[in-house]
Structures are given as structure tokens and as C-alpha cells.
């Protein structure tokens, strides 16, 4: 299926009433007509020709005809709890949140505690920018129903499915817990000073630097069999703190990940073993960078390479996909 579209082609899709999830460079959203679409900024993709940075085309996920109706809603950071109130009766909700916004932080810290979170599939991604523009451009989302951009709000397309189908979210994560130290944290958060390593309190910055740990290996928690990554953003040498791309949580044991020898090869094998035809997927910009995926394919699954993936909760270095199942 085609993924990259010109502006004229996207306008045609919108005007014919298609339900669309759009990912593109932030400069491309202006001038599109109102319709059933939501978008987020990002110029990195896994497409037909493999990983690529593309700034003049739109990566469009055209939702299939099993999607009966859609409702587009925008949520401020203090309205995130309303998302689950707006879940479809039988469907799936697609969410995009701008990276580094207050909404991004609040979502990551709190979403797991929302009682109805798991009652319907909630999937999506964190929008970003070209890595050369990190200091000068803000990631945005775009509401196709109102044509409003936002660098603060979350945008959600709640999709009602044909009664004969159900949606299911799954992930492909090549990282597994290594057999090294067990690491716990006394506080939740994206910025870490202290950790409990095998029960002993240490400065986490000192721990990582003394052991010469590669920041490309995420921390991995075991969520009842699902491997959930937290990726390292940077070491703050002055403050001796560790900055992360997702929060760690108290009372959750983490381990450093095992190394992935050949991401392209192992990922393709894993995708093929799942035998899925997703209606939507995304993967992580860190996998794109660390596994040097430019020009390389990861099986037949395509999508934006994002600043964070959402499968109910915020994930890092993980591929997320949604497929439809006949009931």
C-alpha cells in the first residue's frame, strides 16, 4: 500500500472523506482542507524504500473501511483524564502528543493510573522535529477538523469500528532484560539522581559512567511478560543526573537491556514471525538512529519514526502496531 503522498494527493484523500492519520514535516500542514484527519510533525519514516528522512511528502495512514465513524478531540494537559470517557464503544483511539510539551510529561507520568485506560485500545506517538531543528522548531500536532496546530495539546481520533471487528495493539521490542543488576528508583520521573542497584543506594550517573554503560541500551521493565523500555536521553555531567525519554516508576525493577546485534535482521525475523497486517504502526527515532536504519527495511511494517510510541502508556525504542481481528 502506498504511504507517501504529495500535497495534491492528500487534499484529494481529505476531500473524499477518508479518515487519515498524517505524519510530515511541520511546515507541510498549512493549506490542507478541513476533514477527518489528525497529524503530527516528524520527518523520519520507515517506508517502502526503508528508513528515510523526507521533508516534502506526507506519510499517510488511510484507515480502512472497517472504521465506520470517527470523532476528533483535542485535549489540554489538564483534560487527559477525559480521553477514556470519550473511548468508542467498539473501536480504537489514535493519539498524537507534541514532544516536550506539558501534556507529554503529564501523560507519561499519569496515564497508567487512569482507571479506564485499558478498556479500549489507545495507540499513537509523540510528534517531533528534524534533529537539526531541535533548538529552533517546536513539535506540533494538527487538528484536521479545526485546522488548528498546537505545540501543547494532545489530539485524538476516536474510531468506531464495524461491529464485526475488534482492534488490538501489540508491540515488537527486540530489547530484553539482561541478566545484570536489578535497578529500582526511589522516585518516579524523567530525571534521575539516585537508584537502588541490587538494593544498594547509588548515584545513578556514577553507576552508569563507572560501568561505561552504553546509553543506546535502554532500561527494561517486565510488565507481566511485556518488555517495556525506558531510553536514556543524556547524562547531565554538571548535576550528575541522568535524563530519560520516559519516566521510571517506583517499585518497578529495571534491568539494562541485552545488546541487539543486527536490528534490521532480527526485527525482520520478528515481524515475519508475527504474521500481521497492521492498519497502523510506528517505530522509534532512536531505533532509526542507533540501528542506522536509513535505507534499511524492517519487514513490511511501515510508519513514522517518532519521539515516543504510545501503546496505552509511553514507550521508547519499540515498534507499536494495531491490527483488526474478526470477532
Amino acid at each position, binding site marked *: 500500500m502506498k504511504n507517501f503522498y504529495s500535497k495534491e494527493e492528500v487534499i484529494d484523500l481529505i476531500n473524499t472523506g477518508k479518515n487519515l492519520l498524517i505524519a510530515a514535516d511541520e511546515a507541510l500542514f498549512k493549506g490542507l482542507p478541513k476533514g477527518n484527519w489528525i497529524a503530527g510533525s516528524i520527518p523520519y519514516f520507515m517506508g517502502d524504500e526503508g528508513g528515510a528522512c523526507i521533508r516534502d511528502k506526507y506519510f499517510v495512514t488511510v484507515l480502512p473501511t472497517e472504521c465506520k465513524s470517527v470523532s476528533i478531540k483535542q485535549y489540554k494537559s489538564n483534560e487527559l483524564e477525559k480521553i477514556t470517557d470519550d473511548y468508542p464503544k467498539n473501536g480504537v483511539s489514535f493519539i498524537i502528543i507534541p514532544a516536550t510539551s506539558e501534556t507529554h510529561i503529564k501523560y507519561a507520568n499519569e496515564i*497508567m*493510573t487512569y*482507571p*479506564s*485506560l*485499558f*478498556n*479500549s*485500545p489507545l495507540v499513537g506517538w509523540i510528534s517531533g522535529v528534524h534533529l537539526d531543528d531541535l533548538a529552533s522548531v517546536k513539535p506540533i500536532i494538527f487538528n484536521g477538523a479545526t485546522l488548528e496546530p498546537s505545540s501543547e495539546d494532545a489530539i485524538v481520533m476516536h474510531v468506531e469500528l464495524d461491529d464485526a471487528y*475488534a*482492534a*488490538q*495493539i*501489540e*508491540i515488537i521490542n527486540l530489547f530484553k532484560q539482561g541478566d545484570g543488576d536489578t535497578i529500582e528508583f526511589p522516585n518516579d520521573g524523567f530525571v534521575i539522581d539516585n537508584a537502588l542497584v541490587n538494593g544498594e543506594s547509588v548515584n545513578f550517573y556514577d553507576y552508569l559512567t563507572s560501568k561505561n554503560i552504553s546509553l543506546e541500551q535502554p532500561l527494561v521493565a517486565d*510488565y*507481566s*511478560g*511485556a518488555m517495556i523500555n525506558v531510553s536514556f536521553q543524556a547524562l547531565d555531567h554538571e548535576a550528575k543526573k541522568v535524563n530519560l525519554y520516559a519516566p521510571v*516508576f517506583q*517499585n*518497578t525493577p529495571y534491568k539494562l537491556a541485552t545488546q541487539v546485534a543486527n536490528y534490521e535482521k532480527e526485527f525482520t525475523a520478528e515481524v515475519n514471525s508475527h504474521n500481521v497486517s497492521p492498519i497502523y504502526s510506528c517505530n522509534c527515532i532512536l531505533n532509526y538512529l542507533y540501528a542506522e536504519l536509513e535505507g534499511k527495511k524492517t519487514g513490511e511494517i511501515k510508519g513514522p519514526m517518532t519521539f515516543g510510541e504510545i*501503546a*496505552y*502508556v509511553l514507550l521508547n525504542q519499540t515498534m507499536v502496531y494495531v491490527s483488526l*481481528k474478526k*470477532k
Partner: protein
Amino acid sequence: MVPTKTDPIWKKFVNSEQEYSFSCLATKMMYTRIKQMMRNKDAAIEAEAVDIAHSFFEKNINIVQADLNLIK
């Protein structure tokens, strides 16, 4: 068929220390949340955990029937 919320299965499930081999990502995450909540064992939290588990299986039964069979 999802057991009613008053069925003892739910209290047993939320208090379980067992490691289930769930197949569905959503069930794995939901169960992790339940285990986090149940570190504080009091009646109100247990009731909330039962609500979450029951509601989860009821709303998602078309994709989690196999996982439900594991806890019955």
C-alpha cells in the same frame, strides 16, 4: 462469558501473586497496574482493582478471551 463483578474470581485475581502467561499486551499492562495498586492492600483499593479487572475483560472480551480463560 465474563463472570459478574461479584464473582470471587476477581478478588482472587487481583490478590494473586501468580505470573500468568497472558498473550495480549493490554492484559499484561492491566495486570501490571493491578499489581502496582495492590501493594497497598486495603478494601477500597481492592474494590477499585476488581472494577478495573472486570471492566477490562468485559470491554475487551473479543480479544482477551484466551487470557480470561487463564484466570478462571
